[in-house]
Each structure stands twice: as C-alpha cells, then as structure tokens.
C-alpha cells in the first residue's frame, strides 16, 4: 500500500512540474520596497504589464486627497510583464520585472523622477511619467 502511495506521489510530483518552464538560474522575485508600503496597482492590457505603486505616508496622503505632494514624499512604481498563470487557466500573474521608477518631492514644489531599473514599455518624458504616477489612487480595503 505504501509503495503504491509513493508511486502515486511520484507521478503527481512529475505531473505538477510539467507546467513550470525550465528554471535554471531563475528565481522567484519579491520586490523589496524598504520603508515604503503598497498603495495601488494597475494592469495594462495593451502593454501586457502589471504595476505596483509603493510610497511613504506622505505619498499615501497626497494621492488620497489629490494634493500636491509635500517635501519628502517618495513613490516607486514597479512594472512587470504578465502571463497566463501556469497553474490555473483563466488567471494572469506577474512575471518578468520590467522597470522600477522613483518619484521624489523636494522643497519648493520640485519633483524629481528617476528610472532606477529597466526600460519603459512606451517612451515618455519625465514630466509625463510624474503626471501618470501622481494620478494613482490608493486602493480601498475596509
């Protein structure tokens, strides 16, 4: 009986692996936003990307109220390519990391933009990216 069970488990194990692609030198990445917290997310069907916006308290408040960000506000937009979920047909999940952008508010209403990692999927000026990032609204959770 035990042997049968092991056999079935082995079969189940290899079947389960069939869905995953070859994973040599590949890793499961979890983005580490440091002191920033999750604020909002988005999905772009045309570009097949998903993004997460992180920020500090000041970012959360200015985005919630639609105010100009106070000095010291930091936001990071992290964008990923999305794929069909290999484990569940009908679901999509983020895959390759594409870009990390940072927006930082300084004194005298100045706002700095920096592309920390990767490339943008559609060319845009810094001003356009700042406007785009500042349009995010914090998600609602009771």
């Amino acid at each position: 009986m035990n042997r049968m069970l092991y056999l079935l488990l082995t079969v189940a194990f290899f079947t389960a692996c069939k869905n995953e692609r070859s994973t040599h030198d590949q890793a499961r990445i979890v983005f580490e936003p440091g002191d920033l917290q999750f604020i909002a997310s988005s999905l772009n069907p045309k570009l097949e990307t998903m993004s997460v916006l992180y920020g500090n308290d000041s970012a959360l408040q200015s985005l919630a109220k639609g105010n100009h960000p106070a000095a010291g506000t930091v936001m990071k937009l992290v964008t990923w390519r999305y794929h069909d979920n290999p484990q569940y047909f009908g679901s999509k999940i983020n895959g390759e990391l594409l870009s990390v952008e940072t927006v930082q508010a300084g004194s005298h209403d100045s706002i700095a933009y920096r592309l920390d990692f990767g490339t943008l999927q559609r060319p845009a000026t810094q001003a356009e990216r700042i406007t785009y990032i500042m349009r995010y609204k914090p998600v609602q959770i009771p």
Partner: protein
Amino acid sequence: METTKNTQRIKRIYIIPAAIVAVLIGLQLFNQPIASKPVTGHMDEAPAEVLAILQRSCYNCHSNEQKLSWFDQLAPASWAVKKDVDRAREVMNFSEWDKLSTGERTGKMYAILNMMQAGKMPLREYLLLHPGAKVTEKDIEVVKKYTLSRSGNEAPHNTPPATAGAAPKTFPVSPNGVKYTDAFKQWTVISMSTLFDHSIRVIYGNDIAVKAVREENFFPWPDGAVVVKAVWKQEEQPDGEIRPGEFVNAQFMEKNAEKYKDTEGWGFAKFSGQKLAPTGKDALFAQQSCIGCHRQLSASTGYLFDVPMKVNPASLTEKILSK
C-alpha cells in the same frame, strides 16, 4: 505413505484460496454502501455535448447517480470507492447543481477545465479500472469552449459584496479559526493576479511567507506563513488601463501543519464585503470549496496558486534587495 503426502499437499493448495475467499466474504460484512441522496437539480444550461462528457467521466463520483461496476462494490475496493465518492460529492455534485449560483457554476466549470487540462481528473487510479472515463484532447476543447462562453459571469471566489456598512470594530473569525487581521496592509506584496471574473488581486505575505517564496521553501511551507489575497472588481480607466475598484474580499491562507491537518496544513478563510463577512457555515467549508483545487493544481508550489513565477534572473534578486 506417498498418497497421504499428496493429499496433504492438495489440501494445502486448496486451503489458501479458500481462506482468501472466506476473508473476502467476511469483509463484505463491513461493506458500507454509498449513501443514497436525491437528485435536486441538474446542469440544464450546458450543451448536450458538454453534459455527455461530464456524465461519462465525472458523474460516477461527483453525483448522486453512481453506476458502479460489480468490482467497485466489493470490499475492500468499495471502501476506497466510498471515500472517493464522499469526497467528490463534497467538492462538487452534479446532482445538486441547482444549489449553486451562476457565478459559482462558472467557477466550477473553470475548476473542471483546469483539472482536465492538468490531467488530474478523472483520477489516475480510477482510470485504470474505468478506461472509458478518460477525457480526450477533443473533450477538453469542448469543455474549454463552453467554459470560456460563460466568462463574464461572477466567480468562484467572488461572493457578492455584503451589504454596505461600516467595517466591523472587532475583526471577524472564520469558522475554522482563521482570524482576520488588517496587519497585512503593511506586509510585502509577493505577486499580483487577475481572474476570469474581471477581478484584480494583490497578494501580500508576512515575513515568513516572503522568505519561503525567495528560498522556495514549499515542501512544506513553514508554520506561521500567512498569505493574504485582496480582491477588487476591475475598474477600467478612459485610457484602457485597469485599476482596482470596489473591494470584494480578502482571502487568507495561514500555515499550521498541526491545526489544519485536513487541508494540507493550510487554514483557508475568506472575508467579504465592507463587513468582512467570513465564508462558511462550519469548519468544513475549506474541505468542500478550497483544498480540492489547491491540492490538485498547485501542489508544485506547496498548494498556493499565486506564487511569483520563476522567470527572473537569480542575479536580479541581489540587485532588487540592495536598492
């Protein structure tokens, strides 16, 4: 002398099968029949070709209308059959299809399709003795076409939001003991996903869970790992981009091998709407509506569906961590 020896040998040859037959007959005394239950309503909405596949390949376990072979009804095989049928009916019952909402039906169809595509259903051991139940590539295409035609309906994990109202002052507890906590809002986002039901999701993990993902410590996941999936309705922007809109629910998975033995060590919970109403009348709900799919389809990641894909260069982890 020689004749006596031969007789003894013949006696010994017969005694073994006779004993086996006697034991088998004895076992039948402990043969518990499968509980007979009424048919309350069938899946009338599906096309005949879909129904034919389901009746041929699924009904023998997932219904109240078993057509069992004689060998299925003999102990000890019948014990395994009874266990399978009981579990199958718990998860999905085609004879009680009327008890499901439209959204739940769509969710079940996706579950059926996923199980068939992954080769998980019908069960391999069942197919050994019931080869006629095998589903072909063509069968899967038929089921897929019908399932996709249902999209747009509500989802499996999508309880309609509870009536509007203020968030509860004390946090709710799921019938299996999983407690809601809003601490997850400060946790790390491990992934994002969408589902056919037009929902958008963000999956948070506590420190133990994040460490487990990075180290691929899935067999088993460490006790204390908690993963929370927040689900919203998709809201389309004028430029076509999709953002989270109305909050639908928060789905918890909490690892405690000892406490949640029946569900592979995971405590499942779902808290819906503004009132965060917990799902389930009793602790059995997770066995009936969660673990079935998780067990069969996400075993390779320790029973979690939305673990980040392994598609980024390992060197990137260092870069991201150092920023």
